[in-house]
């Protein structure tokens, strides 16, 4: 659905409106180099302004002001960029003070950074008289991502701000399409079975007029005719039964298949989404979406849509038959129909919002469960059972309140339809008797009409139910498509580059990363040689884990690039790239299954020999043999029954088995005691050998084998070097080391600026 929009953009780059204003400010021969539309004034009120950069000067119309200011290039000028909490700042300084300051919302940040870079280049060229040198690279002018010769930047293009189509249910067709023939036959069967069901009331007409009434008037009963008519009635009933069974069977089968496809596709898509998505979602909500929503849609398709189609057919056929028998009576009978349709339309909106709300509240309830049950130890330790119960009660009460409100409307709906049915019957009785009295119709016709319309109105009643089920299903479908429409923020490249051989050379070029409105990493440059071991150190919250997450491509960099063997990792197929990476986390996650399964997680076709070899190298072999069923022992949801150190060694074996070129150790030994750490350290030494390794460790002593230590502070690399060099420099590393030597580990944690760690967000929910 987005393809139309994006191709339109591709053909003709629209001129941004500010460029027109900009051109009018230029003097002859002056060239516009960069521009930044400002949307905030200095006190952060929304207001428009413009900042322009030419080959001669910096021009500005401050927000709220009419007049333009200008600063020709001169020595000492500096343009300082900063950002905080969603607001970017550019300040123009010279040696003696600040000349001007501009603010803008973070959306304009890439443009601002580009302007600041360009400012430096222009200033330098102006002062030195040399022409501007620009790095010749095919990168997006907006965000700096590589373009790979494409006309449109793959990073910017995925920021789709259009809402999904409201006719969500029609989109289910994508899932129904493979079953279109079954659907077609189901529909044909429906048609015939409905027609068969039309026969009995029709036969009641001759039964009344040609048998019963003549008998009342003294004529004998025509046995032959009665047998024929009753036979017809029985045959029609039998036929309707058989056909109805066949169509229900076929269509439920199809619906179940569609529901199952829907679940699988949604889960598959979910697996493809980046950690960023999981960071913003709650487990309970996602579980509800995939579980109950798909079930609801399936039910809707198998039961309600079927019924509805049936009803529509029946009403149409009935109407046709009624008109063919007696147009006037038919007209009176069908009169309430538009009124009911109008009423349905009226209630529809109210019910839909109500049901959507009820669904959201329902996820709220599951969220409380998903929060409390995994955190039960904390709840109990702090004796907060009452509080959690209260939280659940509140969520439940809200659910009740919302449903009560929906039910108020809904409960009025059904009885009203029933009332209308009764009134309709009354009208037909009255009009029919009048017509019979005037000999315009026979008693048989009236009986047939009453038989038809009593069915007719019941159909309307059940049709009215389609309103709520459709709305519910549409709400469910929307929530599923919300997942399906979400484009991974770590997109798979259209034409992935294949690396012939991976040695493990990683380069980070001017990497910046922003999460929400917080800049977590800024200007990180780092080149890692194949086989080199890098130790990342710094306060907690200094961006170490984020850096590692970026290298794993759990997230994509906001600015700059990460390259493997000189190739931007965004141009590599995600799975291919990750197969080169082994990851050992602080808290190893073991899946439910055997120990062997867990070790072979990254390489399911590993032989038993490989598994044992990996376990041996990870120093896990011995304790695994001590388990009651050895490698076949089952480990639970979070590897219950194994100690932290044992779990860690299993996860090291897991990383060893895939034999990655790049190894990432994120606090791999932090959660175990010193004794266990030694064990794990031995296992790690086996793992590290010959691989490019990036290790994060809290205890600096664990990193003594590192070739280089990279010290990070508040999102920047502040020092690089080996232990001795850094100690000699007496800088940040020296201070960290001193603090630990004094055995005040905990201080470091407390002093560091608290930045939420992304992997915790992703995991803990």
């Amino acid at each position, binding site marked *: 659905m987005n393809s139309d929009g994006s191709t339109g953009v591709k053909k003709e780059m629209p001129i941004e409106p500010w460029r027109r204003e900009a051109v009018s400010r230029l003097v002859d021969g002056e060239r516009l180099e960069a521009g930044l539309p400002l949307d905030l004034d200095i006190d952060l009120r929304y207001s428009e302004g413009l900042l322009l950069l030419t080959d001669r000067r910096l021009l500005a119309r401050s927000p709220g002001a009419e007049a333009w200011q200008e600063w020709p290039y001169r020595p000492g000028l500096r343009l300082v960029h900063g950002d905080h909490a969603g607001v970017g700042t550019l300040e123009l300084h010279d040696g003696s003070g600040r000349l001007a300051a501009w603010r803008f919302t973070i959306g304009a940040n890439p443009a601002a950074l580009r302007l600041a870079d360009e400012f430096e280049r222009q200033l330098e060229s102006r002062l030195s008289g040399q022409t501007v040198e620009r790095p010749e690279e095919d990168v997006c002018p907006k965000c700096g991502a590589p373009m790979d010769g494409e006309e449109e930047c793959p990073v910017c293009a995925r920021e789709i*701000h259009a809402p999904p189509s409201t006719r969500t249910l029609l989109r289910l067709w994508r899932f129904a399409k493979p079953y279109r023939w079954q659907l077609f036959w189901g529909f044909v069967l429906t048609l015939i079975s409905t027609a068969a069901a039309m026969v009995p009331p029709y036969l009641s007409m001759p039964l009344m007029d040609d048998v019963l009434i003549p008998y009342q008037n003294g004529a004998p009963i025509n046995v032959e005719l009665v047998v024929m008519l009753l036979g017809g009635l029985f045959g029609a009933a039998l036929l309707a039964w058989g056909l109805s069974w066949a169509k229900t069977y076929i269509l439920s089968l199809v619906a179940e298949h569609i529901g199952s496809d829907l679940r699988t596709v949604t889960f598959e898509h979910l697996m493809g989404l980046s950690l960023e998505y999981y960071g913003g979602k709650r487990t309970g909500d996602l579980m509800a979406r995939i579980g109950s929503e798909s079930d609801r849609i399936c039910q809707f398709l198998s039961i309600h849509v079927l019924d509805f189609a049936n009803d529509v057919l029946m009403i149409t056929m009935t109407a046709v038959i009624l008109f063919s028998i007696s147009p006037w009576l038919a007209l009176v009978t069908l009169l309430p129909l538009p009124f009911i349709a109008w009423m349905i339309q009226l209630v529809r909106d109210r019910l839909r919002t109500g049901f959507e709300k009820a669904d959201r509240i329902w996820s709220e309830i599951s969220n409380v469960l998903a929060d409390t049950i995994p955190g039960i130890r904390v709840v109990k330790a702090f004796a907060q059972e009452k509080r959690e119960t209260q939280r659940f009660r509140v969520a439940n009460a809200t659910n009740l309140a919302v449903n009560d409100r929906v039910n108020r409307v809904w409960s009025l709906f059904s009885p009203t339809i029933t009332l209308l049915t009764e009134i309709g019957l009354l009208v037909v009785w009255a009009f029919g008797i009048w017509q019979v009295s005037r000999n315009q119709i026979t008693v048989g016709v009236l009986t047939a009409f009453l038989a038809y319309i009593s069915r007719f109105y019941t159909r309307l009643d059940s049709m009215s139910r389609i309103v709520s089920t459709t709305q519910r299903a549409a709400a469910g479908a929307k929530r599923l498509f919300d997942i399906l429409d979400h484009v991974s923020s770590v997109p798979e490249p259209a034409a992935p580059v294949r690396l012939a051989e991976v040695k493990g050379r990683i380069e980070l070029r001017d990497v910046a990363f922003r999460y929400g409105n917080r800049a977590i990493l800024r200007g990180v440059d780092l080149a890692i040689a194949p086989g080199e071991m890098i130790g990342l150190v710094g306060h907690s919250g200094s961006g170490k884990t984020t850096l590692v997450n970026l290298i794993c491509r759990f997230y994509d960099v906001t600015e700059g690039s990460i390259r493997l063997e000189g190739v931007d990792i965004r141009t590599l197929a995600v799975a291919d790239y990750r197969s080169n990476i082994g990851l050992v986390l602080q808290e190893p996650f073991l899946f439910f299954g055997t120990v062997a399964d867990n070790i072979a997680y990254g390489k399911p076709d590993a032989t038993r020999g490989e598994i044992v070899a990996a376990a041996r190298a990870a120093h896990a072999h011995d304790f695994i043999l001590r388990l009651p069923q050895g490698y076949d022992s089952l480990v639970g949801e979070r590897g219950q029954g194994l100690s932290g150190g044992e779990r860690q060694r299993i996860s090291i074996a897991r990383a060893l088995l895939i034999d990655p070129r790049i190894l990432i150790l994120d606090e791999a030994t932090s959660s175990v005691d010193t004794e266990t750490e030694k064990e794990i350290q031995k296992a790690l030494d086996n793992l590290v050998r010959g691989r490019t390794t990036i290790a994060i460790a809290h205890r600096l002593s664990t990193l003594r084998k590192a070739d280089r230590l990279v010290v990070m502070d508040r999102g920047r690399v502040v020092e690089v070097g080996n232990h001795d060099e850094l100690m000699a420099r007496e800088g940040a590393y020296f201070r960290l080391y001193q603090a630990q030597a004094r055995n005040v580990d905990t201080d470091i944690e407390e002093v560091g600026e608290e930045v939420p760690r992304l992997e915790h967000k992703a995991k803990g929910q």
Partner: protein
Amino acid sequence: METDFDLARNAFGRLVLTTAAGDVHEGVVPVRAFPIAAPDEDIALVGQDGHEVAWIGRLDALPAGVRQVVEEELGRREFMPEIRRLRSVSSFATPSTWKVDTDRGETQFVLWGEEFIRRLGKSGLLIEDSHGIHFLVRDLNALDKTSRRLLDRFL
């Protein structure tokens, strides 16, 4: 708490803090510890290295000069527009573009999904837009009827 420091703005627009002991910290920034719960209390002055250098218990207990500097700087730093009115929303399905009136003027933003609306206490809302900027609704019930009706569709 007694104020035992002095605060002034230098030529570069930076705040310079001088403690009673005579230490000078350049480029300090005020940070609200509870920007939503108690915006005018508990404000830290944080040095360039990210460490706290002074603590302001209550803004209104400060000398007028210092207070003005702090308030001015907070106004230029802390950006959390408070939504006063919803003009329109592009659709009830997300992502949806909202046109709103805030205490900082009129603007529009893109809401990615309902889950980016967070409840704050009983009647407050914190809405995060597609760029991570937070918009505050201090009291849902204080909004006009149209805004409430629009907002209700997302809650």
